[in-house]
């Protein structure tokens, strides 16, 4: 039998620096940098963030239709198979939100994978409590986006989840869990929980938690702090942008940290990559609300202390709010979408008349749409109204059409009218064979707040 390193509760010694690595920044993220971090990162913790705003709702919709869908990250096996051997060998603990809507099932699956690899006796925790679908309408009052009562969402409600903080993860680590699997937890909290546990931070110590959560925020988007979503040739160049490493935070007891990555990987950790990630998805930089603390980035100190090493300190913290954010997913109809192509001299003129043809056809077939968008991909499909009036005329253009409708039948009209452009369209119309799905369901996401004491959490433990 293989031996598994573990830190039993009684043996825990206070470390001065802990190494926390990123294993994923979203569901579709690459797996190989996670394996590399596990193998070469000398990590105490490997943390995975795999949920987007609509992940839970999409998972609920799928689980209703697909009895075989277990409800956790569809790449759970890929990710865990890639990292477990190295993590078990090193004694690296894993914190992950790959549980989605069924953390217990994910924990059982990981236990099975461990057993198959020969690792027995590994303690796995699953954290439940974030899913509050059944009671959300009683627990919440107002939709933040439009001020209407959340009760107005009743007929279309799919799922609701509260964003949990780091505390249940800390509790699981205190109980000796080697692997902690959660549902919805605020992204930075996944990375901060190991700091709170290892350094014994009080959950109400907003000074340390502000710093730690700020580091968690830098880590949560993986390669976006190590050179991903960054390179702009000639302006901002990084080496080998095809083999980025995921970030590693070397965190000190006061919560300050050096952000770095495994040597030999592509990309860079420099002041520019760290600054860009610092404000990513932040609104008021002095008041970044998380379940654990309110983070103030305006005092941050950044220092390049070595190649691909940036020291981050002096992030501020303010006491946490009495509420947790709730995401409410609702069915909101369908989107129909397709595209066709023009190229060569006069491509734009042909695209323009094709747009007119579609607009007239939608009247003839009485398309009932809440919104219709016909863009010229290559000219204005991405920036829309922000496209400069003097943008150069492209040699090739895709006419891309999308409509949002109440019913799937109406959405299907988009693809059917694009079909008509094949033999009844404009000269030189290029078209795809329509074998791909051209309609999709819209899951709208609304936000509300719930008093934190109304969201109890529970933790289940199993061993491999």
């Amino acid at each position: 039998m293989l031996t598994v390193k573990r830190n039993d509760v009684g043996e825990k010694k206070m470390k001065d620096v802990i190494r926390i690595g990123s294993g994923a920044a979203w569901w579709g993220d690459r797996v190989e940098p996670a394996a590399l971090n596990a193998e070469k990162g000398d990590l105490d913790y490997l943390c995975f963030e795999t949920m987007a705003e609509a992940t839970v709702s999409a998972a609920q919709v799928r689980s209703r239709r697909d009895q075989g869908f277990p409800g956790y990250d569809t790449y759970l096996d890929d990710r865990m198979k890639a990292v477990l051997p190295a993590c078990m060998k090193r004694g690296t603990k894993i914190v992950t939100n790959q549980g989605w809507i069924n953390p217990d099932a994910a924990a059982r699956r990981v236990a099975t994978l461990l057993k198959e690899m020969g690792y027995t006796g590994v303690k796995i925790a699953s954290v439940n409590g974030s899913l509050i679908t059944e009671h959300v309408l009683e627990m919440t009052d107002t939709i933040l986006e439009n001020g209407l009562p959340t009760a107005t969402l009743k007929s279309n409600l799919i799922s609701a989840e509260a964003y949990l903080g780091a505390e249940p993860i800390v509790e699981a680590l205190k109980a000796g869990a080697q692997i902690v699997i959660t549902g919805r937890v605020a992204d930075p909290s996944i990375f901060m929980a190991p700091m709170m546990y290892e350094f014994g931070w009080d959950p109400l110590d907003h000074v340390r938690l502000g710093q730690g959560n700020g580091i968690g925020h830098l880590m949560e988007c993986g390669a976006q702090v190590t050179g991903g979503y960054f390179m702009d040739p000639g302006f901002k160049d990084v080496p080998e942008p095809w083999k980025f490493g995921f970030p590693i935070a070397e965190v000190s007891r006061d919560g300050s940290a050096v952000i770095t990555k495994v040597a030999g990987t592509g990309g860079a950790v420099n002041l520019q990559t760290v600054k860009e990630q610092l404000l990513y998805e932040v609104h008021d930089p002095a008041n970044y609300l998380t379940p654990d603390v309110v983070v103030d980035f305006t005092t941050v100190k950044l220092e390049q202390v070595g190649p691909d090493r940036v020291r981050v300190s002096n992030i501020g913290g303010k006491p946490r709010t009495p509420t947790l954010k709730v995401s409410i997913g609702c069915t909101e109809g369908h989107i129909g979408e397709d595209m066709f192509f023009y190229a060569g001299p006069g491509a734009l003129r042909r695209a323009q008349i094709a747009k007119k043809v579609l607009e007239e056809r939608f009247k003839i077939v009485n398309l009932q749409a809440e919104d219709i968008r016909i863009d010229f991909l290559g000219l204005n499909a991405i920036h829309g109204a922000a496209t400069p009036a003097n943008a150069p005329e492209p040699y090739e253009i895709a006419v891309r059409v999308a409509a949002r409708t109440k019913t799937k039948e109406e959405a299907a009209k988009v693809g059917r009218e694009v079909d008509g452009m094949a033999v009844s369209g404009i000269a030189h119309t290029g078209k795809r064979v329509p074998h791909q799905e051209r309609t999709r369901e819209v899951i709208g996401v609304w936000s509300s707040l719930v008093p934190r004491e109304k969201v109890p959490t529970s933790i289940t433990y199993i061993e491999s």
Partner: protein
Amino acid sequence: MKVKLQHVAHARSGDKGNTSNISVFAFAPELYPLLKEQLTAERFKQFYGNAITGTVTRYDVDNIHAMNFVCQGALGGGVSRSLCLDNYGKALSAAILGFEMEIPDHLKGLLQAPHLISA
């Protein structure tokens, strides 16, 4: 001299609901005051035209020479409702790189990628 913002600053956009935050970072501390003066929230909103339907709020983060523009109504109703191909607005930050800036001659040496400045 007039140059595009891409020589003065770099940018990144992020999404939350129907709000996009587009942050802009000076390539050099000496260029930051010019950004603050010339790239006001009003001009920013005007530059994006109807691509931003709501308000634009600018937050300055002086210690890292950055500004964060929080743009409501910039994501077509939100990621899942949006009819835009780039429904997260990940490419939205690139538009502001074309904003025209006036740079005094004595700061010309601080511009990024001077060989790519077009006439």
